[in-house]
């Protein structure tokens, strides 16, 4: 378990460093950077490489935004196995829904509670 914390820290940190390099060296805007990372997550997932990483690093791989691409692709792949090619469309949000719905719900609650502070 302690090894898990260690590797979560290291792997999560390294993914963030990749993001920082995209910011500073490739001079991408935050929007571009996040899109690149999400796409990378989806591709790694398609190659079957993301799941071992999750097994290895736990939250270090599930907390960065790359896991969003992974869970979209995983959801779609599971559905493909069950229902064939149509599953690509229907299974997409199977796994991801919690992150997006949490973001919408808390975003809305946030707008009820808070004012921008500047």
């Amino acid at each position, binding site marked *: 378990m302690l090894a898990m914390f260690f590797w979560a820290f290291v792997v999560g940190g390294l993914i963030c460093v990749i993001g920082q390099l995209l*910011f*500073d060296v490739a*001079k991408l805007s*935050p929007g571009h950077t996040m899109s690149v990372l999400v796409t990378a997550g989806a591709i790694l997932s398609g190659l079957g490489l993301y799941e071992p990483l999750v097994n290895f690093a736990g939250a270090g791989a599930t907390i960065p935004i790359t896991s969003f691409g992974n869970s979209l692709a995983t959801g779609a792949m599971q559905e493909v196995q069950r229902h064939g090619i149509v599953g690509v469309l229907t299974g997409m949000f199977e796994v991801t829904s919690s992150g997006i719905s949490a973001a919408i719900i808390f975003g809305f609650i946030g707008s009820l509670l808070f*004012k*921008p*502070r*500047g």
Partner: protein
Amino acid sequence: MPAKSQTWTFTNRPAILSTGVVGGPFEKKGRIAGDFDRFFEDLWIGEDSYEKAQRKLIEEAVSIALKKRNLKETDIQFFLAGDLINQITPTSFAARTNAIPYVGLFSACATSMESLALAAFIINHGGAEKVLAGASSHNTTTEKQFRYPTEYGGQKPPTAQWTVTGAGFAVVGTEENGPAPRITSATIGKVLDLGISDPFNMGGAMAPAAVDTIEQHLRETGRDPSYYDLIVTGDLAKIGRSIALDLFKQKNLDIRSEQFQDCGLMVYDKSQPVQAGASGAGCSAIVLYGHLLNEMKKGRYQKILLVATGALLSPLSYQQGETIPCIAHACAIEYL
């Protein structure tokens, strides 16, 4: 003076009669806090949106400028002003409040000098007795429009600049007999685009426009840079200023670095997290109408040239990959 000149010379002594300068909480911690007339402790200024807050800034600055001279809104013939927000609504809405005949102006951050130059022109040629000129900006409205939501945790690069929350307005007229800060000439700049497209590097984009306007001004007035005690740019900040100094050298203009200041570097303290410096239409307005005029009254400066620079971009234009066209307007202000 050549026939096709972009410089006006004012012989009828248009003067800055009074000024109103207001700022926000962040400016209060800055270096020239003593030169403001009033601070607001809160960015909201008691309003329910930042856009309304910016309108309030303008209204307050205008009323302070009028009060200092015991003037009423009806004593002013024209109101020349602008800001950075879409369709310059804060200024237009403030004009709705004060009901002074209104000319809305836009040259981004160069609006401050555009309005002053036009005001001086109107006064000089007898178009009016008293005119109000000025500009304002508000940090969060500008951030919201041009960049990201204010609470978004994006990292600003060291070239980024911090938009000033503040408004500076001045009553321009002729009646002053004694010594007063007078606008003796003004140069209207042309739009220059040297291909910079990074919206987080305005100083780098605007420097050539400032240098061009200064060069034109000096040539057309036949003045040597040493004529001025101080040449001040609007909001070039660190990068823009060092570029401008280099460009002067290239063009053989003898402007010393201690004679060449930038409003963007004067507003805030070094410890404040403003990256390269301050920016915004309000930046040059508050520095000129507050700090610089006070220094002139104290006798520290006799003649200054203020060159406000503006980046004429919109969020749409840079997202579509357009480069940033820039402009600079200059006003020479002499204490006589």
